[in-house]
């Protein structure tokens, strides 16, 4: 097994993740619509609450060319986020939200981490560069997706059930949507930002 993994890590990882999913899991796919095209991007579509007991994984938020990457990072409550610095200059990471934290100033190739234990939105800022803005959205469960340029999203591995689909956008709002996920099938949802 160890040998197989070392030879074919990608395939093995994919197989393992498939095995770990409940066989009958479904999904939710759809599109975010907005009047202004740029608003379709970087929208988080997530299930407000679902039965979930898994262990949160680690996540990363990079800083490169004075930009936080990604712009918005949804995570499950309890996730530790590693804040990397891939710039030659020093960076600071802090958030005025939630319980508030400040990771101080640190230089290239250094990493500082923060464990997000409270649900909610954290704006991530850098005291040194005020054009650097990112968001960490701490959620109850891992059933979320972030839209790309075209506003399309797909939430995978959702256990069958009835859910409320919520939407986070930096500047716009959307009504929650009721969605029913049947065994092994993908439900669809259209989100209208206003």
């Amino acid at each position: 097994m160890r040998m197989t993994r070392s030879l074919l890590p990608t395939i093995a990882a994919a197989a393992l993740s498939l095995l770990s999913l409940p066989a009958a899991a479904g999904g939710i796919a759809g599109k975010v619509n907005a009047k202004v095209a740029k608003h379709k991007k970087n929208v988080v579509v997530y299930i407000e609450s679902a039965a979930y007991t898994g262990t949160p994984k680690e996540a990363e938020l990079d800083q490169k060319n004075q930009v936080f990457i990604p712009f918005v990072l949804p995570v499950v409550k309890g996730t530790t986020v590693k804040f990397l610095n891939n710039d030659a200059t020093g960076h600071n990471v802090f958030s005025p939200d939630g319980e508030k934290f400040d990771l101080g100033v640190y230089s290239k190739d250094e990493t500082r981490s923060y464990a997000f234990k409270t649900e909610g939105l954290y704006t991530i800022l850098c005291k040194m560069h005020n054009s650097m803005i990112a968001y960490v959205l701490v959620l109850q469960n891992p059933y979320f997706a972030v839209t790309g340029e075209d506003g399309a999203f797909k939430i995978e591995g959702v256990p069958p059930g009835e859910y409320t689909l919520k939407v986070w956008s930096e500047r716009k709002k959307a009504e929650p949507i009721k969605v029913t996920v049947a065994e092994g099938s993908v439900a669809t949802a259209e989100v209208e930002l206003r």
Partner: protein
Amino acid sequence: MLPASRWLVLATLLAADTGRAAPPAAARVLELTAVSKDAVWTLDEVTRTSYWHASEPHGEAASTTRQFRPATIVARKGEQLLIRLRAFDNEHGFYVPDLGIGPLEIKPGQTTELVLDTGKFAPGAYLYLCTKNKCSDRHHWMRGYVLIYPESGHFDAPPSMTEWGAPEVFPTMSQLVKVPTTSSRERGQALFTIKGCIACHNRGGRGGIRNHNYINDTVPRLNNRGELMMLFETEEASKVIDVLDKGQDLTLPLLQELGVPRPGSTFSQYQNMRTIIHGGRPDEGKKDVNGPKPALTMPEWKDDLSTEDANNVLGYLLSISEYEDGSIAEAPPPIPEVLAPADYQTALERFDRPARLGPSTGDSVLKAVLIADACVFLGLVAFRARHRKSVPGEQHEAT
């Protein structure tokens, strides 16, 4: 005997000589003088007499009318220019971002020579500007263009000299801005101009001046402060602007009371911006870590802008930001476009002074005097050494 100080001067001059390319014999010499009183780089001859005559006739207060002509430097591609830069009355900076020149520090009493090989650049209009923010309250006037014409013929499409303000544009910019005494948005706008923010961040805070080896290539724009302060709609921004227009500080409780969507972030960003305005950004991020310091850095304004001033400036910047549902300030009237003359000859007649060839600076005279001094000194040393050889007793004594 040559005093030690003179040796030092001579050594400096000779070292400076080896460090810079010798001007080609055929270089056209231009003498460019910075004058604070008229806030101008000029090709006019500036002497003490012409200076007083030009700016303060009969002891009257400095005229607001431009007296020395702002310089437009005209060249044909391939032409070599030797530009002698002088500062008449104050320290200035000379920067031609797109020709990779400067910023050079130009101090009164010194002449800085610059060889410009126009053959290396595409024909076009290249902005030059002063980089000493505090050289005068009209620092932003100190700019113009280097026009490089095609080797033969004329521009098919004459380049624009409007974006950063050509001399012809000045009449629309140049009403001497007065700073209102009471706190207001107009005061913020006036300070933005008079203190020179406009020189690098551009009219309307549009940014965009090239900043060599700066991580983002160009000076940041400031007309996006609204979104950076998490104010996305005109209604929420207007409430904040009202406070800043009064010169008051933003506080977290106040922002919560105003009902802005993310008061914590708005407050943090406000504090951050205030810190940068007052403290400057001496260590701007480098694009190439091993490269030089970026050409331009944000200076500190703590001695020039009070907290009230800084709040007014921020209020103005928020008013010119774009919001999701439109804008707050009325768009300023468009500035009429100014195009460079299509052909070289017209430009030369319109802008240039007659070319002067050959060396003429005091530098050369000083060098000649010092070299003569040095020769006399070395002669004396040689003479004395020879004389010593003929007196063995002395040599013995010395050992």
